[in-house]
């Protein structure tokens, strides 16, 4: 039983990261109806920036805040410069654009900081949490930060004018434009926020997977799996999906014989495909009716 509780708790902790990634993916999906395949690389780059700031002697939380701001601006810049011209282009062109962005970021990170694996500090420490053997303080911190982030986003979208405007622009762009919302800037704002949320995920997972240009590959797949599970149209679903995928991944690795660490990615694949087949809109997504 202790093994079970242990695995579930560890699953919730990594699930928090997947939830952040899924949230970032959903933010951009809501805004432009495309999956950002470069999301993981953007998060990785942000994490490197914070690492660099700390190398220059900045305290952790200072670097954290500056990285958030820089990621936000960076996200907006990427949207304005690279993806705004592609707004009306077909899906295929957009996917190609995301892949190009992926290659550019990955390669430049390798060029600037090289491909060696780096230690990344945790602000919470790694001792057992509150004397319990079950989770470490870092895992508890990961969960805590994610929950705070979620509450913050909830209040932003429910109770602020700009949050309302963003929701309107995402669901019915034409009507939103008619009531005077600048939809184009709402999209850019969505990109900025997604980039900032992704950077939080990156900074939280970096102490666990270590810092290197390819660190987000697996995390992104789980983030996608989480987003699909929860429904690509629902931020709340993305978060629930993230936690579920984290727990599922850990339990499958422990209890299904022969899975172990190697088959965890194929599990994400199986999860994505089965969800899409059984319930294409995800657990909390809404169905979109197609017209001829």
């Amino acid at each position, binding site marked *: 039983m202790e093994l079970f509780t242990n695995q579930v708790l560890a699953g919730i902790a990594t699930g928090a990261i997947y939830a952040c990634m899924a949230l970032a993916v959903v933010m951009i999906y809501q805004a432009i109806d495309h999956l950002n395949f470069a999301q993981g690389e953007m998060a990785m780059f942000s994490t490197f920036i914070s690492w660099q700031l700390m190398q220059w002697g900045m305290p952790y939380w200072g670097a954290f805040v500056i990285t958030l701001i820089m990621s936000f601006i960076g996200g907006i810049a990427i949207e304005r410069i690279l993806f705004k011209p592609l707004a009306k282009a077909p899906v295929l*062109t957009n996917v190609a654009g995301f892949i190009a962005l992926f*290659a550019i970021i*990955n390669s430049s990170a390798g060029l600037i900081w090289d491909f060696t694996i780096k230690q990344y500090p945790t602000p919470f420490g790694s001792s057992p949490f509150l004397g319990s053997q079950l989770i470490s303080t870092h895992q508890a911190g990961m969960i805590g930060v994610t929950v705070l982030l979620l509450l913050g986003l909830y209040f932003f979208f429910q109770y602020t004018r700009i949050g309302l405007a963003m929701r309107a622009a995402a669901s019915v762009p034409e009507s939103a434009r008619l009531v005077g919302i600048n939809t184009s800037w709402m999209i850019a704002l969505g990109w900025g926020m997604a980039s900032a949320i992704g950077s939080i995920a990156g900074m939280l997972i970096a102490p666990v997977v270590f810092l290197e240009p390819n660190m987000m590959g697996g995390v992104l797949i789980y983030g996608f799996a989480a987003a699909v599970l929860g429904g690509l149209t629902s931020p709340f679903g993305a978060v629930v999906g993230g936690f579920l995928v984290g727990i599922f991944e850990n339990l499958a690795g422990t209890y299904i014989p022969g899975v172990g660490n190697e088959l965890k990615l194929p599990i994400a694949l199986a999860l994505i*495909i089965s969800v899409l087949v059984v319930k294409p809109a995800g657990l909390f997504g809404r169905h979109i009716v197609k017209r001829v």
Partner: protein
Amino acid sequence: MSAAEEVVAEGNEAVEAVPKRAMTLGTGTSLVVLLLLVVVPLFAKNFVIFQLTQLLYLGLAVLALNILTGGSGQFSLGQSAFYAIGAYITAVMMEVFNIPYFLCLPVAGVVCFGAGFLFGQPALRLSGVYLALATFALATAMPQLLKLNFLEKWTGGVQGLVVTKPDAPFSLPMSQDMWLYYFTLVVVLVIYICSVNLLRSRSGRAFMAIRDNEIAASAMGINVALYKTLAFGVSAAITGVAGGLSAIAVQFVAPDSFTITLAIQLFLGMVVGGVGWLPGSIVGAAFIIFVPNIAEGISKGLSGAVFGVLLFLVIYLVPHGARQVAILGQQLAGRLRKN
């Protein structure tokens, strides 16, 4: 907008200058290209011949993706998985069971057809981003599956498998590389001609009807599910043959040669070559083989960035890839002739 509709939208823009049927080169141009492909290796060094072989089989893999996307309007970021299956089947049959290489390729094709057809079943319900996602996950998972323990006695696990390069038969006075090149050329030509005919056949028109408007196609009595999975199967089969050829040419297969990077390269090859324009496949293959090399020459470690920047330039300036360039060239030639 579904993926199919989007591909159509793209098609319509592209087709303004040329009729939609023009997915191949004219007879004259084809013959010139073929002549070049036959003659050039006679005067080239072994390494160049190897690169040309690479060009052919990667072109074949891009062609396979092109049939799927340009033909039926679905797209895939998971082609590396089928490529890997083809390569592994060929390698295992040749090395473990000592079966001659030319018999391995059809088997690879048939098995990949099955794999693609089966994968196409769940993929049926997906379109656009969802399909991209499912196939993306397939490509990511494939190297892990190839490393599985219980397959290790055949696949060699993480170590991979070394493949012996075949000699020229009938004691022809040819180096192994040159023989393999001509063998690849014949296989690619046969498949190319079959693909062109497939797309012009009844089934091909069914593919395109589905691509243009799925609901209208099903109202016309086309079995949408069957043809969509069929397109997946055919594409996977051709990709598998390309993978098999690559295993023979590279003389080595290992799980890490078939990562998502390969799938992405094939996808980019298709975009650069022009979606739905079959000769573009070779242009696309040339892009994915030579551009990283050139970029590496400019600055080591920068190849990814240069690749990405070039790709952005392509999708901004010539969104329909090499096809658009070819059309521009034709128009220019036409104008010159008039003067």
